[in-house]
């Protein structure tokens, strides 16, 4: 036998486990997704940071190159070029011997001319004639004297401690000067002047191949070089045509006097640092993944722990909860088990039960009430039967006792025996009636319907009753409008009619009347038994079909009516599918109406 409680617990726990499992899976999913999202975002951040760092590294690298180039330009301009006429003259003086020793007679001539202040007219944007070649020869020789190795090759703020390659190109891409490391490697940086044609800035950053197969980064910085012209420092013919400047022009503004400073540096160190950044980023990502995995594991463990804790709590709680929930049921069950044949009262109040149980309580209480009344009816019936049997038995016993007290004559014995016979017959009839009802109750009475003529059946009853009625000094009439066929059990019908007619005689008054009318209509066949007897009060009328009910106990003195006749009639009519009702008025008479359904 499975108990409701354990079943409930099992169902509840199964449901709970399912719910918890589902919740855990969902939570795991959500947490997993959130974490993955977070990881992705973090990885993106790492990538971004890496890119920024790389960029800033490169920018810094490029910046350093550019700074270096600019520095070289500035130094070249400010330190080594004349800033005034006096300086220019000094410079020129210094240059003349260089020129004569180095470049040949033609140059020396040109130099002398320049020295004497012969103005060399310039036309167009570039140096005209052979002047530039002469000029740049001067410049080159000048640069050769510069301590490039000291100044320009020094790394500026260069953490890499790489030695920059420096090269200076002249306006016509001619190489003017190189740093020592380039010279040592016999390498010159490629130079394309045209690269500036489409560039707004005065510098260009490009990757470049370096000696010894190294790759590097180079900046080409374009800067004007204020080389003094051989002649007076004077403004060329003013294009504006007014404000003739008097005096020498401190700085030449010839666009042709542009130099290109190349500064190149190996990117090996840079790449190494970038690679290390990248490695850092990769490590970060791995750590991130690990962290995510750890978090997920921790979340799962937490979920499982919570689930187990909830399950255990519910395991304990459910038993308590269910015990509490079943309490009213237990109370009801207790109350029901306390019901006995002595006490049909349900020992629990309806109001004390939950609403769900109240209908059950009602049903049980109603059933118990029915049982109780059935039980009491049964008890009453047994008491009634024994009572009804006791009286004739007492008569019988007393009669026999008296007869036996002393010797009697044959006549006296005969009298005693006939008394006894009469009593025994009463007893027999009573037993018969009780048995009839018992059979009816047990459902052992068979009704065998057949087609019968209702008026005929009533007629046979009338024939039996008429002499009896006359013997009681009553008039008996039977009326029937027309023959009518019924499908019913004729024996039972006869029994019913005879019984009712007997009553009609029994409860009549001297000189009274008894009628039996057979009528038929759409509803069925009506048998009306009318008497002009003592009648009944409404209270009596309600009870006449109850067993052992007698309106007037006095009738027992004269008959064998134990209050069973009408009970049997009612049962029979019910069995035949008919109805019986009664109209009565005290001291006027009674009409019993038996209606049987038409065939």
């Amino acid at each position, binding site marked *: 036998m499975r108990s409701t409680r354990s079943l409930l617990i099992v169902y509840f726990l199964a449901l709970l486990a399912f719910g918890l499992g589902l919740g855990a899976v969902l939570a795991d999913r959500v947490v997993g997704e959130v974490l993955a999202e977070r990881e992705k975002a973090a990885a993106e951040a790492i990538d971004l940071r890496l890119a920024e760092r790389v960029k800033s590294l490169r920018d810094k690298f490029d910046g350093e190159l550019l700074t270096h180039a600019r520095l070289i330009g500035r130094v070249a301009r400010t330190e080594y070029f004349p800033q005034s006429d006096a300086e220019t003259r000094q410079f020129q003086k210094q240059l003349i011997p260089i020129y004569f020793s180095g470049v040949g007679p033609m140059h020396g001539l040109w130099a002398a001319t320049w020295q004497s202040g012969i103005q060399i007219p310039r036309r167009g944007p570039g140096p005209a004639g052979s002047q530039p070649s002469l000029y740049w020869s001067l410049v080159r020789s000048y640069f050769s004297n510069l301590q490039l190795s000291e100044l320009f090759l020094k790394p500026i703020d260069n953490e890499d401690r790489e030695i920059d390659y420096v090269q200076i190109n002249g306006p016509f891409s001619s190489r003017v000067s190189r740093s020592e490391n380039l010279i040592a490697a016999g390498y010159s940086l490629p130079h394309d002047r045209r690269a500036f044609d489409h560039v707004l800035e005065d510098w260009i950053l490009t990757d470049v191949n370096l000696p010894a197969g190294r790759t590097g980064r180079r900046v080409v910085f374009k800067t004007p070089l204020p080389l003094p012209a051989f002649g007076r420092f004077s403004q060329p013919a003013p294009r504006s045509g007014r404000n003739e400047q008097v005096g020498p022009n401190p700085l030449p503004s010839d666009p042709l006097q542009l130099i290109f400073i190349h500064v190149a540096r190996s990117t090996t160190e840079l790449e190494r640092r970038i690679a290390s950044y990248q490695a850092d980023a990769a490590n970060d990502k791995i750590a991130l993944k690990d962290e995510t995995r750890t978090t997920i594991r921790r979340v799962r463990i937490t979920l499982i722990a919570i689930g187990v804790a909830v399950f255990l709590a519910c395991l304990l709680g459910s038993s308590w909860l269910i015990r509490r929930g079943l309490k009213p049921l237990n109370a009801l069950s207790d109350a029901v088990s306390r019901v006995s044949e002595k006490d049909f009262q349900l020992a629990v109040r309806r109001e004390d039960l939950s609403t769900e149980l109240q209908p059950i309580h009602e049903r049980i209480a109603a059933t118990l009430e029915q049982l109780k009344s059935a039980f009491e009816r049964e008890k009453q019936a047994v008491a009634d039967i024994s*009572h009804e049997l006791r*009286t004739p038995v007492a008569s019988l016993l*007393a009669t026999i*006792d008296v007869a036996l007290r002393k010797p009697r004559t044959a006549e006296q014995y005969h009298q005693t025996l006939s008394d006894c016979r009469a009593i025994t017959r009463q007893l027999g009839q009573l037993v018969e009636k009780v048995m009839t009802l018992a059979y009816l109750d047990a459902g052992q009475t068979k009704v065998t319907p057949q087609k019968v003529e209702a008026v005929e059946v009533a007629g046979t009853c009338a024939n039996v009753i008429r002499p009896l009625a006359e013997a009681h000094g009553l008039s008996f009439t039977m009326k029937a409008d027309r023959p009518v066929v019924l499908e019913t059990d004729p024996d039972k019908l006869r029994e019913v009619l005879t019984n009712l007619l007997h009553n009609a005689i029994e409860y009549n008054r001297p000189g009274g009347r008894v009628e039996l009318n057979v009528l038929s209509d759409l509803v069925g066949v009506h048998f009306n038994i009318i008497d002009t007897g003592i009648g009944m009060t409404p209270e009596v009328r309600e009870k006449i079909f109850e067993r052992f009910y007698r309106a007037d106990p*006095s009738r027992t003195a004269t008959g064998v009516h134990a209050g069973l006749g009408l009970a049997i009639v009612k049962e029979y009519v019910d069995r035949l599918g008919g109805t019986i009702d009664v109209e009565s008025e005290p001291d006027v008479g009674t009409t019993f109406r038996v209606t049987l359904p038409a065939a």
Partner: protein
Amino acid sequence: MRVLLVEDQLALSKALRQGLEEEGFAVDAALDGEEADAKARSTQYDVIVLDVMLPKVDGLTLLKRWRGAGISTHVLMLTAKTSLGDKVVGLDTGADDYLTKPFELDELLARIRALVRRSHQVKDPVIKIYDLNLDTAARRVTRAGQPIHLTPREYALLEFLAFHRGKVVTRTMIWEHLYDEYDENTSNVVDVYIRYLRNKIDKGFEPALILTRWGEGYMLRSEDDPPPTKDPKDVKRKG
């Protein structure tokens, strides 16, 4: 002794009446409550045998009425019901005894005799007067050890005198208690029976127990009485 038998079952009433009469009781029968009420009020019975289930007025109601009206006659209830509740109700209502149907006739008779004794405040069923021995239970009479055979009516008369011994009983009293409603009221029938009784219990014995009080009635001598020669008025006072 005169008994009112209230029983609606004709057969039972008839049998009981015969049985009681053969025992020397004078029996009046009533078949319903109203008849019983009328009879109980008009006659002083020694015992009333009362059925509970009665037409018209039931036994318990009757009993209540009687007790209310001061009729203290001892009542033996007869009923077909056996439950304790009915017995209790019956006894509480004022019944003196209770018998359920069916019953043995002997038991009924014994209980009626016991009630008769109680109604005369006699506990011992054997009444002794000098050498006269009256066994009211067995209905046997001996004088000086000699059994005396009496007819039921003679016995009833002796018993009635014995219950009232030392007191004068009038002829009317005797007649009322010894004869039922159907017996003819002939004045000397009592004197005739007294003579019969004297012949049987006093003839040849000393002292004479049945005394005649002229103009009053008869009296059975009591043991406490002074010798018979004394003035009977003293005896009367003593009783």
